[in-house]
């Protein structure tokens, strides 16, 4: 984040300088010009000096500021290419006239001059000067010479065009990258109020879709009008020279085009703006529904949501249709005006010609010149349309990123440790619906262990957030040793304060990634590889961060460890203490062991694998596990697993897709197994059709037991029916050998290849002892093992990879750790086999001391989007450990323990109370008094007030609390616990919480 802000500052640098020249103070800024109204509003935001955080109000100014060098360069090249382009237009005429028709040889010349180079200079400077008098050539040589020159020019023009297009494209892409990055950086600076009104999916749409056309336009922003404008102006000047009246006429029509068409298009732009907003809202709404899909289902609001979206789409359709109609209406008018001019030329020009005021030659020349006028004009008008369109889009985007929606940039400030007297001075927080805190004044000595007991209102939680700097007070201030906390650098505060709220925010990634998220703050040194240099230069050019990524950003020093291994140990220590160690261990058992990342564990797993087998044998349980043996069919494993003898790593070899894999099919056909599998598939399909018929679709039994899903039943019924029909027809036509071959040849085999594939897919999941359909015999097993070897060879030859094969001496990286340990399949048909084997395995892991390494693998467990693969309690633990691992000076907990469940929450609280209070402080919001006596300092929320700190010996009388306000002497909080402990026993308020608890239970 710091990188982002830094980059934004860099990009904002140029404009900040501009702003610096102008009066900085808001009021005079407003007087300078209307355009300056923005800096006035965001007076404290230097970056937003004259723009919203690096985004100018005008798109063209933005483009010019960031790409003027490129624009000028490209313009220069375009101009340089023009003479050659015109030369290539002129050459064909010369080839025809001079070489083919022989005009160059008219006066009986045998030869003509070729390649005469003349320097055209103004007459007053000596007129034309001959540089090279040319070669003498005959007709053929002239023809070939001119033709080769034409070819050369074509090549050169092509090269120019290529370069210009690439340069324009690159320019546009660079600007798009810059714009997207700037917008993203600005999102990071959204004020809490702006965030409350922002929908994630809408902002994502802005960055993804809405700025895309802007990027496409940027390459043409200056170049196209410059180029086409010159062209059009030349043509117009030519007409004017030929005849002033006709020229004025043409200019008049062009003027009308330029005045009327944009006017008509204004409505188009208004509609376009509406369309942009409507489709952005549609994206936002869809995002909302997807995020809240559980609520939609549980409330049965599907129909309502469908209707709502349908209504939106209807509105959008209406808008788009109106735009469409108007667009083509404008196009029609435009064409009409363009066609109108020749009519006027013929009519009026003809009139002049008849009157003798205009020569026929002039008229023809004017009409010819006019033919050159419309294409550039049309393109110019199109460009103008695009410009307006893009500008509207840009402004719409800008609306979301106005400076008043942004927080100021992080300025350097204090970085003192948060120890000393913390005081709230008249702190108030105003929410849209009214005050949440008003005029709260109190003081606390830090480090301390502080409880804020809630009265059920939002005050306690808000005050905790004020302390954690999650909420900035609307009035008053929070000071430490007399210094306003706002004087601290933002980065320093986020490092020194950790906050864990009631709904933890997790990102997709591993457990470890989420826990160390708060340590990702040390940008690694920029890479010095030459390969990176290009990327770096590009990042510089587009105002993007130059820090390497992906790289190790972890600040180990902040966690107080030396390296990744120690950090893992520290994380595991916390997780174990909090009581999630067992769960992470189980994640580890299901996790994958990458032999390169965990070489020690990989080696020990092989050792453990052998020990496991021996131990099972010693306990007389060898029959419970059927090990993977390259030379034997594993009866407890599926047909597919026996065939592959490994774990697929691509979807092309996973599940039913295996039946469609070309290499697999080749081997199956070669070994004749395909026919067996089709027969098996047939029997499975028939059995499933028989026994699952009549169950409603979506019934849980389908999912759990059937080889077919409910909606597949009719399909397979049809497949089987087709077979019966084919067989019947085969019967009718006689079953002779020749006939069978003929039928197979013309595709009338028992099954079409698609049907066969579908049938082969079914037995892939078949396990004889479990499904008991009696489909597999010893011969089949032997042939399958044979095919296994062939398949492996074939797959290796194909060189596609995709399978991590089982090898008794190697770890199978794609298989879960547990399977690697077991290296076989449990015999499910023995009662209690799983329990027995698990017990043996657990004992073995204990004995070999593998648990820590396995738990470490568990840190790689993926938490899923928003941590949905974890339970609420687990998410809360991850969020808490994320805060703890940073060793903050101040840890603020606002309901962070409540999702953990009562027992674990109590353990965790005990742990925290033990760890905090000496060097660092803990502030926790408590829902009631029940555990408040374990805290040194107790603050109480009442309405919009926070009372305290309690002198715990005395019962918390509201009046006393109010009076104590900020006048409690420093150190009172420290003295309080001792008093509380001694005073508790005979205090009447003491047993009250317990009594309440009893009441609740009763």
């Amino acid at each position, binding site marked *: 984040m710091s990188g982002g802000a830094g980059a934004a500052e860099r990009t904002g640098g140029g404009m900040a300088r501009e702003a610096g020249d102008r009066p900085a103070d808001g009021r005079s800024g407003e007087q300078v010009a209307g355009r300056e109204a923005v800096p006035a509003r965001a007076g404290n935001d230097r970056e937003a000096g004259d723009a919203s955080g690096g985004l100018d109000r005008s798109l063209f100014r933005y483009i010019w500021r960031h790409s003027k060098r490129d624009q000028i360069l490209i313009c220069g090249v375009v101009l340089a290419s023009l003479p050659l382009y015109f030369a290539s237009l002129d050459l064909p005429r010369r080839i025809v006239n001079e070489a083919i028709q022989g005009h160059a040889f008219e006066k009986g010349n045998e030869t003509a001059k070729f390649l005469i180079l003349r320097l055209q200079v103004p007459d007053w400077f000596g007129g034309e000067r001959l540089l090279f008098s040319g070669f003498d050539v005959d007709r053929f040589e002239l023809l070939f010479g001119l033709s080769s020159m034409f070819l050369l020019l074509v090549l050169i023009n092509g090269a120019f065009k290529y370069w210009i297009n690439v340069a324009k494209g690159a320019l546009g892409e660079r600007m798009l990258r810059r714009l997207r990055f700037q917008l993203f950086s600005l999102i990071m600076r959204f004020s809490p109020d702006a965030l409350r009104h922002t929908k994630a999916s809408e902002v994502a749409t802005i960055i993804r879709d809405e700025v895309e056309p802007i990027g496409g336009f940027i390459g043409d922003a200056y170049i196209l009008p410059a180029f086409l404008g010159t062209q059009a102006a030349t043509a117009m000047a030519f007409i004017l020279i030929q005849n002033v009246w006709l020229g004025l006429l043409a200019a008049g029509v062009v003027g009308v085009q330029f005045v009327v068409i944009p006017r008509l298009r204004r409505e188009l732009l208004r509609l376009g703006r509406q369309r942009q907003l409507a489709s952005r809202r549609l994206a936002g709404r869809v995002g909302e529904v997807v995020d809240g899909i559980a609520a939609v289902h549980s409330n049965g609001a599907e129909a309502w949501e469908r209707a709502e979206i349908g209504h939106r789409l209807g509105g959008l359709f209406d808008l788009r249709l109106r735009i469409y109609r108007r667009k083509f209406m404008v196009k029609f008018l435009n064409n009409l005006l363009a066609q109108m001019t020749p009519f006027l030329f013929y009519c009026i020009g003809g009139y002049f010609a008849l009157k003798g005021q205009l020569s026929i030659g002039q008229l023809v020349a004017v009409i010819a010149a006019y033919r050159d006028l419309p294409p550039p004009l049309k393109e110019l008008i199109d460009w103008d349309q695009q410009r307006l369109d893009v500008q509207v889009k840009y402004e719409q985007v800008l609306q979301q990123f106005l400076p008043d929606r942004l927080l100021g940039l992080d300025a350097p400030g204090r970085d003192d440790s948060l120890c000393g007297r913390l005081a709230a001075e008249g702190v108030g927080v105003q929410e849209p619906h009214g005050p949440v805190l008003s005029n709260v004044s109190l003081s606390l000595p830090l480090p301390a262990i502080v409880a804020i007991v809630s009265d059920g209102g939002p005050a306690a939680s808000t005050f905790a957030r004020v302390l954690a700097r999650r909420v900035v007070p609307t009035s008053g201030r929070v000071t430490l040793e007399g210094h306003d906390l706002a004087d601290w650098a933002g980065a320093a505060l986020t490092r020194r304060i950790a906050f864990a709220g009631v709904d933890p925010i997790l990102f997709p990634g591993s457990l470890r990634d989420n826990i160390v998220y708060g340590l990702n703050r040390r940008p690694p040194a920029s890479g010095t590889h030459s390969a990176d240099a290009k990327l770096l230069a590009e990042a510089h050019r587009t105002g993007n961060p130059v820090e390497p990524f992906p790289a190790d950003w972890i600040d180990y020093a902040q966690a107080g460890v030396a390296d990744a291994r120690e950090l893992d140990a520290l994380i595991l220590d916390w997780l174990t203490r909090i009581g999630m160690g067992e769960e992470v261990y189980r994640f580890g058992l299901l996790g994958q062991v990458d032999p390169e990342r965990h070489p020690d564990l990989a080696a020990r797993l092989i050792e453990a694998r052998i020990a496991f087998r021996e131990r099972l044998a010693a306990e007389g349980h060898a029959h419970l596990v059927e090990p993977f043996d390259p030379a034997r069919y594993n009866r407890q494993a599926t047909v597919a697993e026996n065939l592959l003898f490994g774990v697929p790593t691509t979807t092309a070899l996973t599940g039913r897709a295996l039946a469609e894999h070309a290499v697999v099919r080749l081997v199956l056909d070669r070994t004749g197994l395909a026919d067996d599998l089709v027969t098996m598939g047939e029997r499975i399909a028939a*059995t499933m059709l*028989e*026994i*699952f*018929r*009549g*169950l*409603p679709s979506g*019934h*849980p*039994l389908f999912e*759990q*037991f059937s080889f077919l899903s409910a909606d597949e039943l009719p399909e397979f019924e049809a497949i089987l029916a087709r077979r019966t029909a084919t067989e019947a027809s085969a019967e009718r036509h006689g079953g002779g050998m020749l006939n069978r071959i003929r039928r197979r040849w013309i595709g009338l085999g028992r099954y079409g290849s698609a049907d066969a594939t579908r049938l082969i897919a079914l037995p892939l999941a078949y396990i004889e*002892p*479990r*499904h*008991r*359909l*009696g489909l597999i015999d010893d011969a089949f097993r032997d042939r399958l093992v044979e095919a296994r070897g062939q398949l492996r060879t074939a797959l290796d030859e194909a060189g596609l990879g995709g399978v991590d094969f089982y090898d008794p001496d190697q770890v199978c990286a794609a298989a879960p750790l547990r399977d690697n340990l077991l290296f076989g399949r449990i015999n*499910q*048909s*023995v*009662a*209690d086999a799983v329990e027995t084997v698990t017990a043996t395995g657990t004992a073995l892991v204990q004995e070999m001391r593998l648990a820590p390494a396995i738990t470490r693998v568990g840190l790689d467990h993926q938490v899923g989007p928003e941590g949905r693969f974890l339970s609420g309690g687990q998410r809360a633990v991850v969020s808490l450990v994320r805060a703890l691992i940073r060793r903050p000076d101040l840890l603020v907990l606002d309901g962070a323990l409540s999702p953990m469940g009562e027992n674990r929450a109590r353990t965790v609280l005990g742990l925290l109370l033990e760890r905090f209070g000496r060097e660092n402080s803990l502030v926790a919001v408590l829902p009631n008094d029940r555990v408040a006596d374990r805290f040194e300092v107790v603050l109480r929320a009442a309405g919009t007030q926070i009372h305290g700190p309690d002198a715990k010996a005395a019962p918390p009388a509201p009046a006393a609390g109010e009076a104590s306000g900020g006048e409690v002497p420093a150190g009172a909080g420290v003295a309080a616990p001792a008093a509380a402990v001694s005073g508790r026993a005979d205090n009447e308020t003491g047993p009250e919480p317990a009594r309440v608890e009893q009441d609740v239970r009763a």
Partner: protein
Amino acid sequence: MTLETEVQSLRQVPMFREVDPARLKLLAFTSERVHFADGQRFFDRGDAADAAYLILEGEAAVTLDGPQGPIRLALLGANALVGEMGILADQPRSATVTAAVPTTALRIDRRVFLELLSQFPQIAIAVMRELAHRLEMTNQQLAQTRAS
């Protein structure tokens, strides 16, 4: 031994005699076949009733722990259904069942069984008929005991 032989066994059970073979096949398919070693417990008295067992091969003893060690109440042979009352009444096991010799049984999961009952009235009626029949028998026995 395949699904077909299990279906044959299920048909021997009075409770399932009237049920459509396709449904019995579904019941067999959704159940697991498990082997118990000699002396291995099916379940203990007081355990949660999570499944019923149909003995396919072998014998199982139903016992209650008495002061002088286990008292054998019955010895069940092939085609006997055990534990079905527990899963219907959702009550803990009332007795302990142990394999007397190496035994193979079909484990009918409670959840799946109830699922089938609610889905196919034919099976539900067959079960009700059997239960009513048993109640009738018990009533008669009670009457006889009272009379004597």
